[in-house]
Protein backbone atom coordinates (compact mmCIF):
# COMPACT_ATOMS: atom_id res chain seq x y z
CA UNK A 1 0.00 0.00 0.00
CA UNK A 2 2.53 2.60 1.08
CA UNK A 3 4.68 1.96 -2.01
CA UNK A 4 1.79 3.24 -4.11
CA UNK A 5 1.85 6.44 -2.03
CA UNK A 6 5.65 6.53 -2.29
CA UNK A 7 5.34 7.00 -6.06
CA UNK A 8 3.76 10.40 -5.39
CA UNK A 9 6.81 11.64 -3.46
CA UNK A 10 8.63 14.52 -5.12
CA UNK A 11 12.24 13.31 -5.60
CA UNK A 12 14.94 15.09 -7.64
CA UNK A 13 16.06 11.95 -9.48
CA UNK A 14 18.28 13.95 -11.85
CA UNK A 15 20.07 15.81 -9.05
CA UNK A 16 23.39 14.07 -9.74
CA UNK A 17 23.32 15.24 -13.40
CA UNK A 18 22.75 18.84 -12.30
CA UNK A 19 25.41 18.60 -9.57
CA UNK A 20 27.95 17.19 -12.04
CA UNK A 21 27.12 19.82 -14.69
CA UNK A 22 27.36 22.67 -12.18
CA UNK A 23 30.67 21.35 -10.83
CA UNK A 24 32.16 21.04 -14.33
CA UNK A 25 30.92 24.51 -15.30
CA UNK A 26 32.58 26.16 -12.30
CA UNK A 27 35.72 24.03 -12.59
CA UNK A 28 36.08 25.29 -16.16
CA UNK A 29 35.30 28.87 -15.06
CA UNK A 30 38.06 28.54 -12.47
CA UNK A 31 40.49 27.13 -15.01
Amino acid at each position, binding site marked *: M*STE*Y*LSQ*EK*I*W*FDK*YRYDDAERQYYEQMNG
Partner: protein
Amino acid sequence: MANGTLYTYPDNWRAFKPLIAAQYSGAKIKVASSPPQFHFGQTNKTPEFLQKFPLGKVPAFQGDDGFCLFESNAIAHYLSSEALRGSTKEAAAQVLQWVSFADSEIVPPASTWVFPTLGIMQYNKQATEHAKEEVRKVLSVLNEHLQSRTFLVGERLTLADITVVCSLLWLYKQVLEPSFRQSFLNTNRWFITCINQPQFKAVLGEVKLCEKMAQFDA
Protein backbone atom coordinates in the same frame (compact mmCIF):
# COMPACT_ATOMS: atom_id res chain seq x y z
CA MET B 1 5.45 20.07 25.22
CA ALA B 2 4.48 20.26 21.53
CA ASN B 3 1.50 17.85 21.36
CA GLY B 4 -0.54 17.63 18.19
CA THR B 5 -1.59 15.77 15.05
CA LEU B 6 0.64 14.49 12.27
CA TYR B 7 -1.04 14.09 8.87
CA THR B 8 0.58 11.50 6.61
CA TYR B 9 -0.04 8.41 4.55
CA PRO B 10 0.79 5.07 6.26
CA ASP B 11 4.42 3.88 6.36
CA ASN B 12 5.84 7.23 5.24
CA TRP B 13 9.58 7.23 6.00
CA ARG B 14 9.49 11.04 6.15
CA ALA B 15 6.87 10.84 8.91
CA PHE B 16 9.00 8.36 10.87
CA LYS B 17 11.49 11.16 11.64
CA PRO B 18 9.14 13.34 13.74
CA LEU B 19 7.48 10.26 15.24
CA ILE B 20 10.78 8.84 16.49
CA ALA B 21 11.86 12.30 17.70
CA ALA B 22 8.59 12.50 19.68
CA GLN B 23 9.35 9.10 21.27
CA TYR B 24 12.50 10.67 22.74
CA SER B 25 11.01 14.04 23.68
CA GLY B 26 7.72 12.71 25.05
CA ALA B 27 5.61 14.87 22.71
CA LYS B 28 2.13 13.31 22.35
CA ILE B 29 1.40 12.85 18.63
CA LYS B 30 -1.87 11.63 17.14
CA VAL B 31 -1.23 10.15 13.69
CA ALA B 32 -3.95 10.91 11.12
CA SER B 33 -3.12 8.56 8.25
CA SER B 34 -6.40 6.88 7.25
CA PRO B 35 -10.05 7.79 6.86
CA PRO B 36 -12.00 9.35 8.45
CA GLN B 37 -9.16 11.41 10.00
CA PHE B 38 -7.14 11.70 6.80
CA HIS B 39 -7.41 10.35 3.26
CA PHE B 40 -4.19 10.91 1.30
CA GLY B 41 -4.97 12.37 -2.11
CA GLN B 42 -8.25 13.86 -0.94
CA THR B 43 -7.93 15.56 2.47
CA ASN B 44 -4.63 17.20 1.49
CA LYS B 45 -6.34 18.77 -1.53
CA THR B 46 -9.19 20.40 0.41
CA PRO B 47 -9.20 24.21 0.82
CA GLU B 48 -9.04 23.97 4.62
CA PHE B 49 -5.94 21.72 4.47
CA LEU B 50 -4.28 23.93 1.83
CA GLN B 51 -5.05 27.00 3.89
CA LYS B 52 -2.92 25.53 6.71
CA PHE B 53 -0.40 23.67 4.53
CA PRO B 54 -0.15 25.51 1.18
CA LEU B 55 1.89 22.83 -0.61
CA GLY B 56 -0.59 20.07 0.26
CA LYS B 57 2.40 17.84 1.09
CA VAL B 58 2.65 15.35 3.96
CA PRO B 59 3.84 14.90 6.60
CA ALA B 60 2.18 18.02 7.97
CA PHE B 61 1.82 18.88 11.65
CA GLN B 62 -0.80 20.82 13.57
CA GLY B 63 -0.16 21.45 17.28
CA ASP B 64 -3.00 21.30 19.78
CA ASP B 65 -2.35 25.04 20.11
CA GLY B 66 -3.05 25.48 16.37
CA PHE B 67 0.57 25.98 15.33
CA CYS B 68 1.01 24.52 11.82
CA LEU B 69 4.20 23.28 10.19
CA PHE B 70 5.10 21.48 6.95
CA GLU B 71 8.44 19.95 5.76
CA SER B 72 9.36 16.81 7.72
CA ASN B 73 12.75 18.10 8.92
CA ALA B 74 11.14 21.18 10.47
CA ILE B 75 8.47 19.07 12.19
CA ALA B 76 11.05 16.61 13.53
CA HIS B 77 13.17 19.50 14.83
CA TYR B 78 10.12 21.09 16.50
CA LEU B 79 9.09 17.84 18.21
CA SER B 80 12.66 17.12 19.38
CA SER B 81 14.18 17.73 22.78
CA GLU B 82 17.18 20.05 23.16
CA ALA B 83 19.41 16.97 23.43
CA LEU B 84 18.19 15.66 20.05
CA ARG B 85 18.69 19.07 18.38
CA GLY B 86 22.30 19.28 19.56
CA SER B 87 23.06 20.87 22.92
CA THR B 88 25.89 23.17 21.77
CA LYS B 89 26.07 25.56 18.81
CA GLU B 90 28.57 23.25 17.15
CA ALA B 91 26.45 20.13 17.76
CA ALA B 92 23.29 21.89 16.53
CA ALA B 93 25.10 22.86 13.32
CA GLN B 94 26.44 19.31 12.86
CA VAL B 95 22.91 17.93 13.31
CA LEU B 96 21.73 20.22 10.48
CA GLN B 97 24.76 19.18 8.41
CA TRP B 98 23.71 15.50 8.53
CA VAL B 99 20.04 16.39 7.99
CA SER B 100 21.05 18.26 4.80
CA PHE B 101 23.37 15.38 3.87
CA ALA B 102 20.45 12.92 4.11
CA ASP B 103 18.21 14.99 1.83
CA SER B 104 20.82 15.98 -0.72
CA GLU B 105 23.16 12.94 -0.85
CA ILE B 106 21.03 9.94 0.19
CA VAL B 107 17.40 10.44 -0.85
CA PRO B 108 17.94 10.95 -4.63
CA PRO B 109 20.15 7.87 -5.30
CA ALA B 110 18.25 5.74 -2.77
CA SER B 111 14.97 6.50 -4.55
CA THR B 112 16.50 5.94 -8.00
CA TRP B 113 17.72 2.49 -6.94
CA VAL B 114 14.76 1.34 -4.81
CA PHE B 115 11.69 2.69 -6.64
CA PRO B 116 12.01 0.37 -9.68
CA THR B 117 12.32 -2.63 -7.32
CA LEU B 118 8.97 -1.62 -5.81
CA GLY B 119 7.45 -1.38 -9.26
CA ILE B 120 6.67 2.32 -8.87
CA MET B 121 9.11 3.58 -11.45
CA GLN B 122 10.56 2.49 -14.76
CA TYR B 123 13.91 0.68 -14.39
CA ASN B 124 16.85 2.44 -16.07
CA LYS B 125 20.08 0.43 -15.96
CA GLN B 126 22.46 3.38 -16.30
CA ALA B 127 20.65 5.45 -13.65
CA THR B 128 20.51 2.47 -11.27
CA GLU B 129 24.22 1.67 -11.69
CA HIS B 130 25.07 5.33 -11.06
CA ALA B 131 22.80 5.38 -7.99
CA LYS B 132 24.53 2.26 -6.62
CA GLU B 133 27.89 4.09 -6.85
CA GLU B 134 26.47 7.13 -5.07
CA VAL B 135 25.02 4.91 -2.32
CA ARG B 136 28.39 3.18 -1.95
CA LYS B 137 30.02 6.61 -1.53
CA VAL B 138 27.45 7.69 1.08
CA LEU B 139 27.88 4.47 3.08
CA SER B 140 31.63 4.92 2.88
CA VAL B 141 31.51 8.53 4.14
CA LEU B 142 29.36 7.36 7.06
CA ASN B 143 31.65 4.37 7.64
CA GLU B 144 34.72 6.64 7.91
CA HIS B 145 32.90 9.07 10.18
CA LEU B 146 31.65 6.28 12.44
CA GLN B 147 35.06 4.63 12.68
CA SER B 148 35.58 6.14 16.11
CA ARG B 149 32.04 7.23 16.94
CA THR B 150 28.90 5.51 18.21
CA PHE B 151 26.59 8.22 16.89
CA LEU B 152 26.91 10.89 14.20
CA VAL B 153 27.12 13.93 16.48
CA GLY B 154 28.63 13.92 19.97
CA GLU B 155 28.32 11.02 22.36
CA ARG B 156 24.56 10.52 22.28
CA LEU B 157 21.87 9.86 19.71
CA THR B 158 20.54 13.04 18.04
CA LEU B 159 18.17 14.06 15.28
CA ALA B 160 21.09 13.49 12.87
CA ASP B 161 20.96 9.72 13.55
CA ILE B 162 17.16 9.64 13.32
CA THR B 163 17.15 11.53 10.01
CA VAL B 164 19.96 9.57 8.33
CA VAL B 165 18.63 6.20 9.53
CA CYS B 166 15.15 7.00 8.16
CA SER B 167 16.60 8.06 4.80
CA LEU B 168 18.51 4.73 4.61
CA LEU B 169 15.58 2.54 5.66
CA TRP B 170 14.37 1.53 2.21
CA LEU B 171 17.94 0.77 1.10
CA TYR B 172 18.65 -1.54 4.04
CA LYS B 173 15.28 -3.27 3.72
CA GLN B 174 15.20 -3.61 -0.05
CA VAL B 175 18.61 -3.73 -1.73
CA LEU B 176 21.63 -3.61 0.63
CA GLU B 177 22.19 -7.36 0.67
CA PRO B 178 25.04 -8.69 2.89
CA SER B 179 27.59 -8.86 0.06
CA PHE B 180 26.96 -5.19 -0.78
CA ARG B 181 26.97 -3.87 2.78
CA GLN B 182 29.85 -5.96 4.11
CA SER B 183 32.37 -3.21 3.27
CA PHE B 184 30.63 -0.76 5.61
CA LEU B 185 30.83 -2.46 9.00
CA ASN B 186 30.76 0.76 11.08
CA THR B 187 27.71 2.03 9.19
CA ASN B 188 25.92 -1.31 9.61
CA ARG B 189 26.74 -1.42 13.32
CA TRP B 190 25.49 2.14 13.81
CA PHE B 191 22.30 1.50 11.76
CA ILE B 192 21.48 -1.65 13.76
CA THR B 193 22.24 0.10 17.07
CA CYS B 194 19.73 2.81 16.15
CA ILE B 195 16.88 0.62 14.88
CA ASN B 196 17.20 -1.49 18.03
CA GLN B 197 16.60 1.52 20.29
CA PRO B 198 13.14 1.15 21.88
CA GLN B 199 12.12 4.58 20.57
CA PHE B 200 12.86 3.44 16.98
CA LYS B 201 11.17 0.07 17.49
CA ALA B 202 8.05 1.82 18.81
CA VAL B 203 7.68 3.53 15.40
CA LEU B 204 9.38 1.20 12.91
CA GLY B 205 8.62 -2.14 14.50
CA GLU B 206 11.05 -4.90 13.57
CA VAL B 207 13.26 -3.79 10.65
CA LYS B 208 14.34 -6.83 8.61
CA LEU B 209 17.58 -6.22 6.74
CA CYS B 210 17.68 -7.20 3.09
CA GLU B 211 18.98 -10.74 2.43
CA LYS B 212 18.72 -10.70 -1.37
CA MET B 213 19.00 -7.50 -3.39
CA ALA B 214 15.58 -6.86 -4.90
CA GLN B 215 15.68 -6.50 -8.68
CA PHE B 216 13.39 -4.21 -10.54
CA ASP B 217 9.83 -5.39 -10.61
CA ALA B 218 8.99 -5.37 -14.32
